[in-house]
């Protein structure tokens, strides 16, 4: 409900405090106290800020599959690849080197079939997600600039292939702020660290409060969240601390000092609220079943997805879920069949998340993004090769909810899935579109650093208006 306040910039003609007070009807909840306390900070970099225009999505859940998911084995059906399996094609570039290279076509390991009313074809690799295709906008024409994991992962998150830049979640936090100050604005749930390390969710030159707070699935999701002394002792600590700080403020009247006093209040709130947000034990059996999460488990992608919904419900702006780390991932050079267990790890959980969000009416205001750093080659040097190499010329991703058309396919690749044939969507365009759905103009969302204005999309990016509902 509090999200609705942000829909129109005109809401800011009265003070945010008044609005929030009106919206909550003066309830004395801890959450409200946290919000009001923090909104009174004149220069709070995390206070909610008006978007550039009415947003379609208030939250993003960004599902990132590490290692490079094969498009021709998942969301981009290529009958010609099946037909011409083993035949040779000539490509004109290999790993950045121009030349003529002969390659053998390789058919997918999974059959494709149409699903839903839309009839969008999805392979048997993702049987559960396939059942949700009528809610998806599948993009089959993504492309990026680099063939290596590190650079491609960095680009999918920051737009840049080489240099550390702010992550898309940090940009969203910077552009829009957040509603619930008892939780971070940008949460990354990652059991392992992906390629490019924590630059992936870094804030770089943006204020540090916008960086992603990494959560490692398990009993202690955020560092230093667990009290090391009895609660009654901590209460005494906080009381004496507040008394000292109030005395210290006399004659100093400093916004930064005030902000730090409040940060302890928020931290105290986080100790209570964050564990609750990460605690799925009170979810119903039906919900757990929807995600495929065994009761009592605090790990696995199903847990990550369910916690993502709980965080969005609690006002977190941007949640990223990373399925696996820089080892044992989708990087199927050796054998495409290694995609199977990775897909099984995420498929049911993702479908559960989509259904759960929809059932609770949250899908309309939450954009779910499913992506990876690149696709995989539809061909190989050796005709007998079981795996596939990196392929950034064309790959697939999908969006759902948050103002995106449902049950459509956008863009296409050539008959073998080697190049984009129609409607290319560069990573910069992908980013511009996500920001647009959040009510942010990617050309206006800038930060001045080292003498110039920086953007997530650098000097590129086109909003793919064709996919917006």
């Amino acid at each position: 409900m509090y999200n609705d306040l942000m829909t129109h910039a005109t809401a800011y003609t009265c003070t945010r405090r008044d609005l929030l007070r009106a919206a909550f009807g003066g309830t004395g909840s801890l959450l409200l106290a946290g919000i009001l306390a923090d909104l009174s900070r004149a220069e709070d970099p995390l206070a909610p800020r008006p978007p550039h225009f009415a947003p379609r999505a208030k939250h993003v859940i960004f599902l990132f599959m590490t290692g490079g998911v094969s498009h021709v084995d998942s969301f981009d059906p290529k009958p010609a690849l099946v037909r011409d399996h083993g035949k040779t094609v000539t490509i004109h570039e290999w790993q950045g080197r121009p030349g003529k290279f002969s390659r053998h076509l390789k058919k997918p390991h999974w059959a494709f079939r149409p699903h839903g009313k839309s009839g969008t074809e999805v392979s048997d690799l993702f049987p559960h997600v396939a059942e949700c295709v009528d809610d998806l906008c599948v993009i089959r024409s993504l492309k990026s600039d680099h063939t290596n994991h590190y650079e491609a992962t960095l680009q999918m998150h920051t737009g840049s292939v080489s240099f550390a830049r702010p992550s898309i979640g940090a940009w969203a936090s910077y552009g829009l702020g957040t509603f619930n100050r008892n939780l971070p604005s940008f949460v990354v749930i990652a059991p392992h660290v992906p390629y490019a390390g924590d630059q992936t969710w870094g804030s770089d030159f943006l204020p540090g409060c916008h960086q992603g707070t990494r959560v490692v699935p398990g009993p202690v999701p955020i560092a230093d969240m667990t009290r090391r002394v009895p609660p009654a002792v901590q209460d005494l600590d906080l009381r004496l601390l507040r008394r000292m700080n109030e005395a210290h403020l006399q004659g100093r009247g400093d916004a930064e000092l005030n902000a730090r006093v409040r940060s302890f209040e928020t931290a105290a709130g986080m100790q209570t609220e964050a564990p609750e947000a990460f605690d799925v034990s009170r979810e119903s059996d039906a919900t757990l079943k929807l995600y495929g999460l065994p009761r009592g488990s605090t790990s696995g992608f199903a847990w990550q997805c369910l916690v993502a919904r709980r965080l969005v419900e609690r006002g977190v702006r941007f949640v990223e879920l990373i399925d696996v780390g820089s080892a044992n991932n989708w990087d199927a050079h050796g054998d495409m069949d290694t995609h199977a267990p990775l897909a099984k790890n995420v498929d049911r959980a993702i479908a559960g998340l989509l259904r759960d969000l929809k059932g609770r009416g949250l899908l309309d205001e939450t954009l779910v993004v499913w992506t990876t750093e690149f696709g995989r080659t539809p061909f190989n040097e050796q005709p007998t090769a079981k795996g596939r190499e990196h392929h950034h010329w064309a790959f697939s991703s999908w969006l759902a909810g948050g103002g995106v058309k449902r049950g459509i396919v956008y863009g296409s690749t050539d008959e073998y899935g080697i190049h984009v044939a129609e409607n290319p969507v560069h990573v910069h365009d992908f980013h511009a579109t996500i920001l647009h759905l959040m009510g942010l103009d990617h050309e206006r969302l800038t930060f001045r650093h080292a003498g110039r204005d920086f953007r997530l999309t650098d000097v590129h990016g086109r909003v793919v208006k064709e996919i917006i509902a």
Partner: protein
Amino acid sequence: MPYSAAFLLLPALVPGMDVSPAEIEFFEKDVRPLLVQRCQTCHGADKPKGGLRLTSRAALLEGGGSGPAAVPGKPNDSLLVKAIRHKDLPKMPPKERLPDRDIDVLTRWVQMGLPWPDSAGAATGKFEITPEQRRFWSFRPVKDSPPPVVKDTSWPLTPIDRFLLARLEAKGLRPAPVADKRTLIRRVTFDLTGLPPTPEEIDAFLGDDSPGAWEKVIDRLLPSPHYGERWGRHWLDLARYADTAGETADFPIPEAYKYRNYVIDSFNADKPYDEFLREQIAGDLLAGPSEKKAERVVATGYIAVARRFGFDPQNYHHLTIEDTIDTLGKSVLGLTLSCARCHDHKFDPVSRADYYALYGIFAGTRYPFPGSEEKNRPRDFVALGPNERAYAVAEGTPGNARIQLRGDPHQPGPEVPRRFPEILGGAALPPGAKGSGRLELAGWLTDAKNPLTARVMVNRLWQHHFGRGLVRTPNNFGKQGQPPTHPELLDWLAARFVEDGWSVKAMHRRILLSRAYQLTSGDDRGAALDPGNEGFGRFERRRLDAESIRDALLAVGGGLDRSQGGPHPFPPEKSWGFTQHNPFQAVYATDRRSVYLMTQRIRRHPFLALFDGADPNSSTAQRGVTTVPTQALFFLNNPFVHEQAGRFADRLLAEPGDDGRRVGRAYRLALGRAPTEEERGAAADYLRESAEALGAAGVPAAQRPRQAWAGLARVLFGSNEFVYVD
């Protein structure tokens, strides 16, 4: 708040042009190189095919025999776009269709309306420095003006005060009063050493009523070995120092620490700044006594610690050189030189040729190879002795570099002779020079006539003493930076710096002995009149930086190991097999000062990252100050804080006397002052109530006193008074 200035946005348009910066960048980065490489061979200035010149917007619109080459905003109606699509005749380029990306670029460019920056003129556009650019304040020679006359002649203690007061008086402002001695000794001790003063040091200063008491404190602190650990760290921020290489597997560099220690030792020795720079740029090439050789080789770690890129860094060496030039430009000259890698600098008079003239110097330098996923053994380190090596540079194969079109090393343009940037005199290598040019570069940078080197450094010294520089963009003295608030003072300081033989410690004394340094920070009236404190009419309260917070916790707790750090306990080289899939990552515990923590590029040290430590991936001029709840959680629950609090409790409990005396000692150690009567009462209440709460929680009676005292210690550590300096 440090970020408020950052929200100022560039105007949408560059004055005098109707092309936006983004469009300029797009044109220069993507469009122009395409026109030059793929079109102008035939459609250039001389004898263009079909009468069509693609050398300026006007020429393009005028077109050739077949009419205008493009209709702005209408790619589908534009001949150029039709031709490059190869669907209709003519097909251009005739022999081979351009890659999709390039077709995309030109189509978008037509769609955008053919933005073509004025200053670019014809596509052969020559770079010229305008008289206005030459007159820009930072490129003019340093002007040594006498300190101005002030009305209140009793206030200034030193010439610095006269410069500051004259400006305050002109604005009708009065400086804040001088702070009390207790505030001053805490301020200057953290400032010079990054550590809190001990109660004994405070008492000595308070008890010294002689006129030279303040000067005595400064002269006691400057020779402290902890001074170099503090001020060396400021330089390490600028030099983007790290203990790992930053390529995709983030290989460890066990020898990097020698450069770190070199920097610390150099500050402690008050090495003249010009010599310090010469050693870092060309230490291996300097003539001098043989016992200096090893130290000077280690100094070139400044270049060697440049970031490596990719899984195969040798293929991205052009980016490592860019990182070198970027760091050199920002840290020494306050110029964003690397902006000129792909195109002439948009705002400052730095051309692409200037960039590649410097590039040639570093391309002729051999960088050490730290190891990478592809080739996981280090090589090309410099031997210091039979069993010792340094992560340092050496001469490579000298020669000029070619311009890289679009910044792409695979698209070579014309060769440029190695030289210094034109705006700074453009000095060239002497005829017959045989080396890389680093030795000459070291000379150009430290030439007393160079207008930037001294200005940039005195501004940094000022910045760290006062919280802000006279130039508030310490790494950018160019057009996009801020002009100095006190230009005459900046130049006066720069002139004194050179006159003092580039002595950094002499500059500290000049600044610290001023009255301006000794003002209070709490004057609200002054804050309202001069909110940005542009006049330096009061002192700026500051949060301790990450290192000082950790060091103060260790020092007050009593567990600080004050010895100098050596190498890190990295795994042995023969075991290295780091990959992008399993990159090197480690956090090594130590009780030494934070400057000795192992610093990684890909995964930042968790503590330093939490408290706004420097980003070791690029030159950091000024730390950010964020205030986030996860920092508060650190003070509440982090094991390190609890460990120091426990040590502090032990230290206090070992003191003779009663609890009241111990509370007094706790305040004096942690905050540098005695508690008030009210605070004594509150502390006593806390100790009693905490012991009760611990008892109620089942803590055995014998453990309660220590835990209660540790609780009091945590509260003191967490207080604003502990982490802020007035």
